[in-house]
């Protein structure tokens, strides 16, 4: 008798849980993928929720590749990628929602202002290992990189390293925030993070004399940037489409710009307004 009661109880619990999941699923858009895009998508989701209180946008991390495969498999409605799509992924429906500059950052007390891309490459290849060789103080350079598989690392390798391998001796951290935190505490450190996340605790270097600013990325002078992409398995529909439309709207793009990203739709929308 008791066993039966327990079994019934368990069954009821399962049904309850499942139905809970189901009801939530119905009104929610799941956005998953790159942890670089994640914080921006969360901001978008919060604002979107204010405008449309009846719908829920659920933002999750997991990484670019995981996000894309989640979109393909249907685990997520929208996949987020912070790297250019591979050839095999290009057939998916996708849209660049913004561009993200990559800033090479050092400690604010480090006297250097400018490095050439070549010098950055040499630092990350460990062929230059002392700030003295670059005109700074005599001290070992503490090279900080992201982990294998990270979209930010991938973008940095593509854009800055030109097929040269990042030294295995580099310190590896698994988020932009951790890299920034380390650089802000270590006057001999160098790292790279999203331009939008640069704050007063670190100093973003000029590369080949070009400062990592919004204008310079827009104008194409600053070459370290990567696309932030939304990927959907097929033509987006329903809530997913509404959320993507919101992201690409003037409002959404301004929001992303405010957060430090470089909008892609601005010129087009400006054109439309005129």
């Amino acid at each position, binding site marked *: 008798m008791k066993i039966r009661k327990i079994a019934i109880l368990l069954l009821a619990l399962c049904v309850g849980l499942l139905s809970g999941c189901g009801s939530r699923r119905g009104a929610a858009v799941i956005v998953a993928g790159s942890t670089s895009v994640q914080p921006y998508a969360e901001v978008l989701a919060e604002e979107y929720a204010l405008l449309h209180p009846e719908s829920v946008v659920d933002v999750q991390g997991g990484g670019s590749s995981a996000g894309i495969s989640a979109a393909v498999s249907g685990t997520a409605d929208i996949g987020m990628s912070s790297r250019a799509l591979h050839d095999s992924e290009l057939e998916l429906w996708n849209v660049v929602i913004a561009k993200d500059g990559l800033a090479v950052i050092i400690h604010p007390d480090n006297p250097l202002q400018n490095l050439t891309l070549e010098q950055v490459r040499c630092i990350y290849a460990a062929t230059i290992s002392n700030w003295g060789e670059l005109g700074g103080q005599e001290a070992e350079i503490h090279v900080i990189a992201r982990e294998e598989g990270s979209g930010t690392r991938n973008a940095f390798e593509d854009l800055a390293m030109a097929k040269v391998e990042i030294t*295995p*001796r580099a310190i590896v951290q698994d988020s932009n925030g951790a890299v920034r935190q380390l650089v802000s505490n270590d006057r001999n450190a160098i790292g790279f993070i999203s331009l939008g996340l640069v704050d007063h605790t670190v100093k973003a270097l000029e590369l080949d004399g070009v400062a990592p600013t919004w204008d310079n990325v827009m104008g194409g002078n600053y070459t370290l940037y990567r696309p932030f992409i939304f990927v959907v398995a097929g033509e987006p529909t329903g809530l997913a489409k509404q959320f993507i439309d919101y992201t690409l709207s003037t409002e959404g793009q301004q929001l992303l710009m405010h957060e430090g990203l470089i909008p892609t739709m601005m010129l087009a929308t400006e054109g439309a307004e005129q």
Partner: protein
Amino acid sequence: MSEEAIETTNGLKAKKDVAGRVFFGLALASIGALALITIFILVQGMPLIAKVGVFDFIFGTKWAPLQGYFGIFPMIVGSVTVTLGAVILGIPISLCCSIFLAEFAPATFRNAFRPAIQLLAGIPSVVYGFWGLLFVVPLIRDYLGGPGLSILAGAIILAIMILPTVISISEVSILALPRQYKEGALALGMTHWQTIRSVQLPAAKSGIVAAIILGIGRAIGETMAVIMVLGNAVALPRSILDPVRTLTTNIGIEMGYATGDHQQALFATGIVLFLIIMVLNATAQYIVRRK
């Protein structure tokens, strides 16, 4: 003897049977979970080990999964050095603490100190890591040089984290000794300290060794705390001030983005870790049983 009475005893028996079955089922479920995890890790990881080759996987020094290099030797060296460091720093402190608690501390102090030590075990490992990053790492960087994120930083954090395990188990094994050993030694005119060193510690040896092995197991399996303070570089360290990556942090730091062979390689890392910890636990069990 009425029929009613017979029914009652049968009812009792039936109740016992039900309870037995429920407990058996629950026990089976936990073993089942273990089996499932083991099988899952093996199924996920073995193909990659087979593909790379056991020797190249374990002794390969280059780890660049996206380019097809799967050598975890630097991580094995990382795990071993960090754990060894934790043992060198943590075990003497733990043993002194347990001896102090078991033999010297006044009861009031012991009653306050013991829960405090247990509290150390309750602090989430991420808090240890964060504390290490903000406190230990800058100290090392400023006074000893290097980036601060290092074997030393990890060893210090782990040394603190293994304290509760090693202290409580060795304290218990000292307290569990028959009183006669201590009395006998003291009656020979040995001092309290001589008694501890020459009679009680050797007598409690198996418990203490088991405590140390369990501490090592805890240290080698820890992930969150060390991920924040080790620097996670995948290269063979040249000094204790160099950053390293351990087997656990390799999984922890790359799991998020890994797919395909990369993901399998992380499971394969898990297999190696699993084996190491199984061997350690089996050794501890064996030593405790032998007593």
